[in-house]
């Protein structure tokens, strides 16, 4: 008889109740009979876009359904026991003891009212695996292994007293502390900046290797999962598309969908040469928020030429969104000025002319919250047409339909509500709304960050097409360097409120690099086996050389 795998999933079916607006609630199936095995000490990557059911499957390994999600059929065996048939008492023994969980947002998953140490050791003590003293010693050892500063004392802090990357490592320590057989990692690095992601990723990988624990590694980022997993399972809309070794999936994908995931970012964009007169000139801008005593922006100078794209790249807190606030007039700068189309813009939004407002539009990261959920798509796009051009009745309808055609949504969308649209469609409606004002400049603030790669790709293609047709300029704010490569003509790299590198794309992305840009560029995961080791080895060599 063959050795029983640690985790054996057979024909797993998971359902949920949905509440469509204006209809009766109904039950749908979100995972349609998925089967797989995971041996002890191995790592299986679950990959797919949002709605693929990867988190749902991961949580099923703990017999847990989030929200109204319910496991409706199949078997989940952990160490030979079917946990779906176990009573609640046995399942509680399993959760936090044999199988543990690392969530995407450690910041939200730690109780703000309790010290880190108490939360990290809680399950180990509660499940009777270790005494309080042993659990705490184990936690300190894990803090050290995960590269946390001051491992002896960091447990005495509260969650808000450590950084996001540190907290994510604490969450990993929390999962490893009870000495589980299996850890479910649910997008553990997705919410982090790239330079932090690479460190946390390396820490997690080391911890998995050193403790010999098995793991389900859930992510939408194939390049990340390629670094940590032995096998990969590709999921699409609740069904398995392909399963294989990491090497096979990355280098020799069989299915069309997997090939699309691997080769995403197919956009080729020729860099345009700057013209004579810039459309937007950001001149020695320094800015700070009211009630604070430090500058969020320090002497920022950039230019954007008509019909081109300037990408502002940087990590969270680098000041890139603040720059957008200054340009739009939401935050008057303490020094410097903004020149737009040959005229100096008033620093303060209320004193800008209607024309200034019209020519400068914005698209946001969360299309969801940028639209009124109680207005139809037609009303949302029609509003700027009325406001800026006074269009009414039939003219307005025709123009709305033109715009919808431009964003490739076609007929039948005018009367629909945002809740009835997919993430990509919502972002398209936001683009149409910005376009309706016939702007000269659109500021795009992380517009593809909340979207799945394939959908984001479609949005970027659309933006490039619109730029060609309408000769509109984009100020593209993003932390994603792959996006920048795809669409930018010039790039400004921001770090702690300053532009550390600025120029045409071909120059900015070519060596020699400054230290920060080098760190940023080398931290972007590549879809290549062993990439993580190579980068870390390189960095070690460089620091040894210095």
């Amino acid at each position, binding site marked *: 008889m063959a050795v029983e795998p640690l985790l054996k999933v057979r024909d797993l079916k998971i359902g949920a109740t949905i509440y469509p607006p204006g209809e009766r609630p109904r039950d749908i199936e979100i995972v349609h009979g998925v089967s797989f095995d995971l041996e002890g000490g191995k790592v299986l990557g679950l990959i797919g876009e949002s709605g693929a059911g990867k988190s749902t499957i991961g949580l099923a390994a*703990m017999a*847990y359904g*989030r929200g109204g999600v319910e496991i409706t059929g199949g078997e989940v065996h952990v160490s030979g026991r079917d946990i779906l048939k176990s009573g609640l008492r046995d*399942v*509680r*023994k*399993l*959760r*936090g*003891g044999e199988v*543990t*969980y690392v*969530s995407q*947002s450690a910041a*939200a*998953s*730690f*109780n*703000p*009212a*309790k010290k880190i140490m108490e*939360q990290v050791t*809680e*399950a180990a003590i*509660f*499940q009777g695996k270790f005494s309080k003293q042993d659990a705490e010693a184990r936690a300190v050892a894990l803090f050290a292994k995960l590269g946390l500063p001051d491992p002896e004392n960091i447990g005495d*802090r*509260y969650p*808000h*007293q450590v950084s996001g990357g540190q907290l994510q490592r604490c969450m990993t320590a*929390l999962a490893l502390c009870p000495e589980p057989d299996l850890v479910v990692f649910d997008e553990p690095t997705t919410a982090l900046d790239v330079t932090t992601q690479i460190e946390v990723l390396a820490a997690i990988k080391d911890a998995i290797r050193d403790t010999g624990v098995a793991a389900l590694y859930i992510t939408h980022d194939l390049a990340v999962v390629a670094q940590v997993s032995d096998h990969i399972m590709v999921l699409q809309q609740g069904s398995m598309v392909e399963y294989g070794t990491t090497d096979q999936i990355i280098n020799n994908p069989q299915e069309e969908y997997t090939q699309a995931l691997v080769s995403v970012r197919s956009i080729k964009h020729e860099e345009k040469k700057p013209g004579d007169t810039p459309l937007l000139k950001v001149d020695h801008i320094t800015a700070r928020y009211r009630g604070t005593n430090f500058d969020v922006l320090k002497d920022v100078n950039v230019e954007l030429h008509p019909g081109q794209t300037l990408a502002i790249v940087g990590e969270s807190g680098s000041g890139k969104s603040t720059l957008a606030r200054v340009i739009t007039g939401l935050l008057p700068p303490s020094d410097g000025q903004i020149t737009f189309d040959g005229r100096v813009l008033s620093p303060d939004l209320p004193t800008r002319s209607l024309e200034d407002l019209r020519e400068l539009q914005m698209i946001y990261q969360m299309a969801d919250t940028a639209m009124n959920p109680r207005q139809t798509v037609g009303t949302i796009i029609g509003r700027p047409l009325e406001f800026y051009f006074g269009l009414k009745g039939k003219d307005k309808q025709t123009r709305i339909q033109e715009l919808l055609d431009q964003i490739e949504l076609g007929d039948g969308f005018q009367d629909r509500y945002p809740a009835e649209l997919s993430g990509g469609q919502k972002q398209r409606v936001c683009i149409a709304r910005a376009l309706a004002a016939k702007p000269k400049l659109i500021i795009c603030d992380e517009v593809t960050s909340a979207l799945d790669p394939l959908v984001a790709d479609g949005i970027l293609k659309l933006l490039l097409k619109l730029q060609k047709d309408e000769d509109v300029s984009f100020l593209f704010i993003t932390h994603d360097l792959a996006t920048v490569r795809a669409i930018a003509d010039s790039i400004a790299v921001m770090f702690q409120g300053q532009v550390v590198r600025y120029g045409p794309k071909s120059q900015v992305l070519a060596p020699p690099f400054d230290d920060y840009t080098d760190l940023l560029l080398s931290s972007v995961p590549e879809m290549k086996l062993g990439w993580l080791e190579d980068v870390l080895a390189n960095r070690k060599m460089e620091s040894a050389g210095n």
Partner: protein
Amino acid sequence: MHPIFKLIAQRVALGIMLLFAASVLIFGGTMMLPGDVAQQILGQSATPENLANLRESMGLNDPPVARYFQWLGGFLQGDLGTALTNGRDIAESLGSRLGNTLFLAFWAAVISVPLAIFLGLLAVRYKDRWPDKLISAVTLTTISIPEFMIGYVLIYWISIKAGWFSSVAIINDSMSLGAKLNAIAIPVMVLTLVVLAHMMRMTRAAILNVMQSAYIETAELKGMGMLKIIAKHAFPNAIAPIVNVVMLNLAYLVVGVVVVEVVFAYPGMGQYLVDHVAKRDVPVVQACGLIFAAVYIGLNLIADIVAILANPRLRHPK
């Protein structure tokens, strides 16, 4: 110094300012009533001459601002003036009344606050199941019925039919604690039923709100039981809103029990106030008003301070 002291000091200063503002309103409000104290005292026998004499001797001809500060100054030194109707020192008669009111409020609070929080936790544990619905239905019913009605119903069933407790809640200093408690048993029940729903619903809502958090899921995935999660992980994060509504209800127990005191002939502040409003005894009304304002502001100040102390981000800054 820990920055939290600054926050608390700010709150206390704000509370004191608020109290001053309330005193101005109370003084100004009673000033606007037609007639003045001299006219009240003399009543029918008022002639222009003795009115003028009395005003002169009472200092009523001084400018209002001066009289306000005189009144406030006296108040701060414990001199509340004398009642017009019986000429007795207000501080003296008010003292025992206030003591009685606080006695009643204290016992009502001792029973209702833990009960409300317990029922709130229970309602969360059995959310949308029958215990939750039963608790909500019963407490909402009791808050919807006017308190005098509940009072009379309880008197009828408990005191008259069952013969357990006294229907009149008259207490005096010579009574033993047991006798006093026996006397106030039914009013305490009435007050408990009146304030229960508000605190219970708020506890339920505050904890349910916290139960949506990701860290509750973390606790569930540690294999913890529901009651333990609620008590250990949810409750500490729901303290601020719960304390807030508890304090509002405690203030109500002190300030708003007029009806219950009248129903049970209880010798508390409320009844004292009602008596003297009827007799237009302005100094007594002013004194009661200011004490009520102080209680209200004081309790809400405590709620604010607890909310500050309960916030780990304020307690342990980066």
